[in-house]
């Protein structure tokens, strides 16, 4: 892991920074998709991997962010980038409101309830509640990205926008790990009872994790709306949540693991287009095989500054 951190990350960041200049526009679009889904998967990792809450509705927050941007742009004429604060804040508030009554639920109950939230969201936007979500077709024809009047319509600028958001997400996650909140989340994931007994307010921290994960996913939603100039309900279907959930667990809740997961799930199908209909059939087998061969994920995360011998063997408490 040490070598990977010393050399792997700089090489990854530099090549990602140069990447769009080496690709044609189709592959630029694929690269942007990779970045967007990587951000969402990492935000899912904050809730599921780092805090141990079985959240299977991450596409909900992704969707709320994307719809916030789309509605503010199409109905109220806000520039896309100006919607960022609200596209973070509104999903985060939803995270607090929705997580509040349910965070005490045990794993599998939480999982089903979060699936439920996701399904309800899709139904709400499909039924065009309030007449602003565009119904089953969604909202399309959003403006191009601009910065104080300067048009940034090219795909390369969208790519760098997405890349900046990814870097921001990684920075937030790195700081989280070293912070009081991050340690608290780690302890409560490992052993909630012990965490409570040493005075950690588990409820507050769990809601905090939901709000943080939701806010980042919401920001990814803004990038999504910018890239496609459109949002539609099926992009935030709960099947997407299932994929994000699986990516985090198969990846082992570590940054490289999650990025590999996103690459395999969303970029490989673009490379092997002729296998499109076989995609999920093969992925299903791959998920089973990955879990049997490496039950703790492809690249299991190790927690920051805690000595190895203090880390309990099972990474996910029951």
């Amino acid at each position, binding site marked *: 892991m040490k070598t990977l951190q010393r050399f792997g990350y700089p090489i990854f960041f530099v090549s990602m920074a140069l990447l769009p200049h080496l690709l044609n526009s189709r592959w630029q679009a694929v690269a942007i998709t990779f970045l967007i889904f990587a951000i969402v998967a990492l935000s899912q990792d904050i809730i599921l991997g780092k805090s141990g809450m079985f959240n299977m509705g991450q596409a909900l927050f992704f969707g709320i962010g994307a719809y916030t941007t789309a509605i503010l742009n199409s109905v109220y004429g806000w520039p896309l980038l100006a919607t960022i604060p609200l596209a973070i804040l509104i999903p985060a508030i939803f995270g607090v409101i929705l997580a509040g009554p349910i965070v005490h639920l045990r794993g599998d109950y939480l999982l*089903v*309830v979060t699936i439920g*939230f996701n399904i309800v969201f899709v139904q709400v936007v499909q039924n065009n509640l309030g007449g602003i979500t565009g119904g089953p077709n969604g909202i399309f024809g959003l403006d191009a990205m601009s910065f104080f009047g300067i048009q940034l319509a090219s795909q390369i600028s969208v790519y760098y926008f997405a890349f900046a958001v990814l870097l921001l997400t990684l920075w937030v996650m790195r700081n989280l790990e070293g912070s009081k909140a991050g340690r608290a989340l780690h302890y409560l994931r490992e052993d909630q009872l012990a965490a409570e007994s040493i005075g950690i307010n588990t409820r507050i921290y769990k809601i905090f994790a939901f709000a943080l994960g939701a806010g980042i996913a919401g920001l990814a939603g803004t990038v999504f709306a910018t890239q496609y100039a459109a949002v539609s309900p099926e992009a935030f279907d709960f099947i997407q949540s299932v994929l994000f959930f699986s990516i985090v667990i198969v990846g082992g809740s570590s940054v490289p693991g999650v990025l590999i997961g996103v690459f395999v799930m969303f970029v490989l199908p673009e490379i092997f287009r002729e296998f499109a209909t076989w995609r999920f*059939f093969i992925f*299903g*087998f791959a*998920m089973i095989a990955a879990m049997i061969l490496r*039950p703790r994920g492809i690249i299991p995360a190790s927690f920051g500054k805690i000595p190895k011998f203090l880390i309990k063997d099972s990474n996910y408490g*029951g």
Partner: protein
Amino acid sequence: MDTFFQQLANGLTIGSMFALVALGYTMVYGVMRLINFAHGDMVAASAFVGLTIYTQVMGQATSLIAVIAIFLLSAVAMAIVGVILERLAYRPLREAPRLSAVVSALGASLVIQNGIMLIWGPQMRIFPELVPQVYWDLGGVVISLIQVIILALSLILMVALYLFVEKTRMGAAIRASSIDQDAARLMGINVNSVIALIFIIGSSLGAVGGLFIGLYYRGITFNMGWQYGLYAFVAAIIGGIGNIPGAMLGGMMLGLFNAFIAGYVSSTWSDAFTFILLIAILIVRPTGILGERVAEKV
């Protein structure tokens, strides 16, 4: 009042299908503490297998014996799939972290769902009319023969399952394994066979549920398993996960609830209301109406 009784009849029909499928979830969860996400897709697969048996094996016959044979063969096929599924995807992960088994179950679900698509195609198929279209008009409330058969057969199966679990030695082994697997093993119960048995029973009940879905709704699609599976799992939670009478009660309640929402509000909001009901019940009774009965893995 006509709407009320009509939706009561519809709700009991849908509810008994939910209950049959929910039993598969709740029995597996009771012993293994695992949401068998592939169960819903096996229910869907059963409808397609039934369709193929009808066209290829039975030569499109709709005699009583042919119909019974379709049900039995589909149930046996799904029982075999269930045992293979447990052996390949779940048994190697019994000691692994919980979430690994969940992802394996999701993987199995994708495999079965897309397996159906690769074999039978992505388009909707029409399930054969195995039961004659007979309707009775009871003073404004229309009840079909299919509804009567679904309700009656489901009740018979559920009573039989209840008696099996409560009154037989094998049933006692199932109950013991869901209370404490290790203690059950120490008492000489072969937990592996109990789990295999649970997958046989759960999958064949699910298979019957899948054929009922085909008979009742007629249109079957490869991805319908998620929809019905999720509803059935919600039903199992509402009744109290791991609790066999709870799954029956939860299924019936959810079916009636859905029918009344469709009758009095709008069917376009049924998902939203279903999950609002689930959340409300979990807030009031966190372990479901009849309480959960599961082995607590520590």
